[in-house]
């Protein structure tokens, strides 16, 4: 190889810098897509803002009917709506970014590039954060402007709640992506619906104690139930429930580890079946 050719040759692919560049490369692909498609951007904000408007009126009505208790309940409801959107948007941001690759039939190119599966996952997580910020921040600002409810009322612990729910969203998204690898684009409806199905057990709007006794262990196996118990504790009593927070992060680690293994297994199975070439068909 000549000297100029050597100088222009690709760098060592194993280095951390090269790895970060591959993650950025995939994120850049999605950011470029949003730049060229404003309906996609609007869609990111549409549902969280709509949810906030509807629940905002409900809570304004409750606060008007019963002063004192009503305004406390209003805060808990709005806090629940906003934080649950973090988990929903986090999961969808990951799963739909993966689906974008399926829809554009680009997976074959990605999987024959030096992009490692863990880098693919990191890039999808990065896009999930971007989508959560674009989708949830306008709703948070709207809650503050229209209903005088600030998420920051809970104190700095809200950042931990935010992170714990995002991690849970990623764990669910890894499971959804595994199903996409297993069943192809036929499983894509799950990318939108799966977390809605968990809502009743996540104790978003009511305490875990409200659930039937036999259902409570199911709820307590979800990081979200601990986050929302913690949220109510912060809003109603002004106390940080460290125990619930620790459970939330511990369960996040467990579910992420488990779903990571499922994803790795399904990816290998897809390579055995040859599914990566025709997953979008």
């Amino acid at each position, binding site marked *: 190889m000549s000297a100029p*050719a050597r*100088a*222009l*040759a*690709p*760098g060592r*692919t*194993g280095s951390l810098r*090269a790895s970060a*560049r*591959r993650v*950025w*490369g*995939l994120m*850049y*692909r999605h950011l*470029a*897509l949003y730049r*060229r*498609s404003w309906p996609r951007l609007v869609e990111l904000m549409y549902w969280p803002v709509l949810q906030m408007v509807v629940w905002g009126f409900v809570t304004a009505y409750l606060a008007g009917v019963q002063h004192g208790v009503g305004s406390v309940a209003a805060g808990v409801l709005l806090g629940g709506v906003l934080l649950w959107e973090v988990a929903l948007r986090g999961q969808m941001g990951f799963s739909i970014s993966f689906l*974008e690759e399926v829809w*554009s*039939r*680009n997976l*074959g*190119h*990605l*999987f*024959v*590039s*030096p*992009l*490692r599966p863990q880098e693919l996952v990191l890039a999808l997580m990065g896009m999930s954060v971007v989508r959560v910020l674009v989708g949830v921040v306008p709703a948070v600002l709207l809650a503050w402007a229209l209903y005088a409810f600030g998420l920051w009322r809970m104190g700095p612990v809200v950042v931990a709640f935010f992170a714990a729910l995002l991690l849970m969203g990623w764990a669910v998204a890894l499971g959804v992506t595994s199903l996409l690898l297993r069943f192809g684009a036929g499983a894509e409806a799950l990318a939108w619906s799966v977390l809605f199905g968990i809502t009743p057990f996540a104790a978003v709007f009511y305490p875990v104690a409200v659930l039937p006794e036999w259902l409570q262990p199911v709820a307590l196996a979800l990081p979200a139930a601990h986050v929302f118990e913690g949220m109510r504790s912060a809003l109603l009593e002004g106390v940080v429930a460290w125990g619930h927070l620790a459970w939330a992060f511990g369960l996040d680690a467990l579910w992420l580890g488990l779903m990571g293994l499922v994803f790795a297994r399904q990816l*290998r199975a897809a*390579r*055995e*079946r*040859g599914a*990566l*070439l025709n997953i979008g068909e």
Partner: protein
Amino acid sequence: MPRIMHAPLAAPPAILAEHLTKRYRKDAPPAVEDLSFALPRGETWGLLGGNGAGKTTTIAMLLGLLLPTSGRVLCLGHDMARDRFTALARMNFSSPYIALPHRLSVAENLRVYAHLYDVPRAERRIAELAEQLQLTGLLDRPGGELSAGQKTRVALAKALINRPELLLLDEPTASLDPDTGDWVRGWLERYREESGCAILLASHNMGEVERLCSHVLMLRQGRIVDQGSPEALIARYGRDDLEQVFLDIARGRRAAAEAPA
């Protein structure tokens, strides 16, 4: 102390496939069976066969996209089962059946792959490829708005972004008009001569294979049933061109040299 002179070590072949077999289901016949070959560096080889002969399965296994049931593949000396990412950084692939994102512009698409392949001075490389492949005026156009010929040139630019030492091309001139197809073939010939890149080409265009390939692997029902240079195959089957040889093999006829008198 006398100096020990070592003979320069020969570079490993661009592709070494050893007894590759792929069975999609246990009860089904193998899609590829006991496939072995070694593609030397700097040569263009053709992979020929009818629909379902095992070309796509073979290419997918060579790329690590599909795991073989048995056998192994070494690309540029790297075992694709254990060390495929090192090899993948030095090779590339193009197929009309795998798309690039349509909404992204040509430049954005190439930029994505420049990042994925960790290409230094990416913008310079993109400009260079755009000039060579006549894409300069198209860089800001979304991929979905391009003609088939333009898309093929973009796919080639993507495949060359990392200056690959090994290039796998699946029907590189499919759906192109004769003029554009000829231009692509001429370009590939020059690229191989100048870069020393090894190319494995799957094609249904026999004229293309005759022009580009120094050696041809003929596949039928997942097995290599014959191989050799296009000229040697034509002579062995007593035919005028490779298309007739292809038809003989696809229909299970033996070479003239082997046929009973």
